[in-house]
């Protein structure tokens, strides 16, 4: 039986043993080890880390293995594990300008300081099954570049910002810079130099050190309406498929926001902690992230000259599709702030933020598999009672609108033709009344 009330524990144990057998598959086939998953299924590991919101390739690989490749299940495993981990501190803001990029492209300028760096990308590949790969292939020789990349890579949106052509990173309310654009490029490099100086002490002149303390969706319940800090956190660990469809819907006219890929970059960034007893930041990890800086529909009028707007995406790993989706949805969620009508699903804070998390969605959708027979029994009794009333009405007894005191005749269970009528009798009074 589906819910064997006796032997439930035995059945569960047996089901889990069978699950493990399914995980292992044919025992004659060598078992996957975590190194293989981490090294050869890197994008699966990246997705699990991003949506599990825990940067740990080893545990993410374990989750992929344990979940038999079901990434949403793997994400859940990692998320449930991360919630038990102690918090050692808060990192300094990560400076993506100083990223050691493996990929950096802009779709708004043909060429730019630092260059278009394609890096590892599926773009421009022909999606033909590579039958040779089936038998395995050694890693290709990758030649070292003649000279290192221009570091730090200046940011495309900083040039536009310097010219006042795009809203500042924090939104329209911020003061516009009054520097000329040609100086601004040097400034971007200069800011990075200042960043070097900032490494000497904590809370140094970081461009965002005056920002209010950001929220934390892992420590505080989501309060609506939510600020952009909290929204970006939700999007960063949102389900990739959900974000992709939401982003796509904006491109098809449900909250259009005219995105240009100002700059997309992938690479390693340093995570720095500032231990109180030291008073200066120390690098605790290098993590791979993908950042999408989008240039969107311009605004202006009244006190504000015309300028482009922004959408921002940042995710763990090489998840470019997700970073771009995130940036489009971020921009869509800023509709009201930017004086646009927010009438589409992607612009609706409650709709997007409360349904984006696949751990929650998957859990609740699948909870329908739990037994519901007490609830169903209640509904059965109600429907039977309503049918009986309806039949009485049809027979000309007049519809009674009085739910009370209308005693049903007892029916025999074996009275096949009519057996749905035997068990209901509304009680005229509240219990104990």
């Amino acid at each position: 039986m589906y819910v064997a009330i006796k032997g439930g524990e035995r059945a569960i144990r047996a089901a889990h043993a069978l699950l493990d057998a399914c995980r292992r598959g044919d025992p004659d086939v060598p078992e996957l080890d975590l190194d293989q998953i981490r090294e050869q299924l890197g994008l699966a590991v990246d997705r699990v880390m991003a949506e599990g919101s825990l940067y740990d390739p080893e545990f993410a690989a374990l989750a992929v293995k344990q979940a038999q490749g079901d990434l949403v299940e793997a994400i859940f495993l990692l998320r449930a594990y991360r919630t038990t981990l102690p918090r050692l501190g808060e990192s300094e803001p990560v400076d993506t300008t100083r990223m050691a990029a493996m990929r950096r492209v802009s779709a708004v300028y043909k060429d730019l300081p630092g260059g278009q760096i394609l890096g590892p990308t599926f773009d421009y590949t022909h999606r033909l099954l590579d039958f040779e790969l089936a038998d395995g292939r050694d890693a290709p020789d990758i030649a070292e570049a003649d000279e290192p990349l221009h570091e730090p890579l200046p940011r495309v949106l900083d040039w536009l910002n310097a010219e006042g052509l795009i809203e500042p990173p924090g939104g329209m309310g911020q003061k516009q810079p009054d520097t000329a654009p040609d100086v601004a490029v040097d400034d971007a490099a200069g800011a990075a130099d200042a960043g070097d100086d900032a490494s000497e002490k904590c809370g140094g002149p970081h461009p965002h050190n005056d920002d209010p303390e950001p929220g934390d969706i892992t420590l505080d319940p989501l309060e609506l309406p939510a600020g952009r800090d909290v929204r970006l956190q939700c999007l960063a660990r949102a389900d990739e498929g959900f974000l992709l469809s939401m982003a796509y819907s904006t491109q098809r006219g449900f909250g259009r926001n005219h995105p240009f890929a100002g700059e997309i970059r992938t690479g390693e960034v340093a995570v720095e902690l500032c231990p109180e007893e030291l008073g200066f930041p120390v690098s605790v990890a290098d993590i791979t992230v993908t950042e999408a800086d989008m240039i969107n529909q311009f605004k202006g009028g009244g006190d504000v000259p015309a300028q482009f707007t922004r959408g921002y995406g940042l995710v763990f790993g090489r998840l470019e599709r997700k970073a771009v989706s995130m940036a489009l949805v971020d921009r869509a969620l800023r509709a009201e702030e930017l004086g646009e009508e927010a009438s589409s699903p992607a612009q609706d804070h409650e709709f997007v933020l409360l349904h984006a998390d696949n751990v929650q969605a998957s859990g609740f959708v699948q909870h329908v598999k739990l037994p519901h027979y007490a609830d169903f029994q209640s509904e059965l009794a109600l429907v039977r009672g309503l049918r009986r009333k309806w039949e009485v009405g049809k027979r000309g007894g007049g519809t009674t609108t009085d739910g009370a005191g209308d005693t049903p005749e007892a029916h025999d269970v074996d009275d096949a033709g009519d057996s749905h009528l035997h068990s209901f009798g509304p009680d005229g009074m509240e219990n104990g009344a």
Partner: protein
Amino acid sequence: MKPKSRYTFAYLDEQTKRMIRRAVLKAVAVPGCQIPFASREMPLPPGWGTGGLQVTAAVIGQDDVLKVIDQGSDDTTNAVSIRSFFARTANVATTTRTSEASIIQTRHRIPETPLREGQIMVYQVPIPEPLRWLEPRETETRTMHALEEYGLLYVKLYEDITRLGEAATSYNYPVLVEGRYVMSPSPIPKFDNPKLDRSPALQLFGAGREKRIYALPPFTAVESIAFEDHPFTVQRWERACDLCGSAESFLDEIVIDDAGGRMFACSDTDFCERRRQAGNRGAMSAGLIAEELAGELIGESESEGGAQ
């Protein structure tokens, strides 16, 4: 590979438990009002009782005796899973006897055996917002609660009565707490609603996915939404339990053959078992079929204390 992680008592770290206890205290102070809390991911899926799980984890102590039921039964899959979770992570004694338990975590039922002072009921809540199906927006419904704007609920009830002759809500039937907050009792059958009223037990409601906790302190007045000329009614069966003969308890309908033949048995398996131990018999308990069914469907619970 890294060393194996060790989990703390009842799984959650102490800071998290303190945060949940603060929300519980706030909830007790404002009966029926939904208090936001920073729900954590648990090793069970959201929507499978993570709110109840976190509330239990925050209030359980080493000396507690825990009972877990799902749809009234101690031995359905999820109840077994949650009970063994606490047996494993908190190493507490577990029981199937309502009278022996100090904490009872439940999904969708209140035990038939009357509760007593000192017991804590922990309810698993899927949708804590009683106005959700009338207004999907959290921002709106919070304002409605603040302004005691409950007209919509009465409009729905009025429409049900005019169209169908009675309330069309058979479970998760909304209640008014101490004349102030309308509260979702979780999907218990409305049959159980009267048990909420002035219960001597402390009743805590946890919604994990929805990040809300609310509570009924002992002896709180809880009234099911109704009109004076259309009083609240509960389901009643024309028959008694086929196993123990109880005419007072909520019955489950069990299809027993291909012809759609049915038997009825108490949804509360512990209550049914105690009655049979006391010598009570139902219509089917004499026959051989019933013995088999009782064996298959009702049975003794295998877990008495501690992990398996």
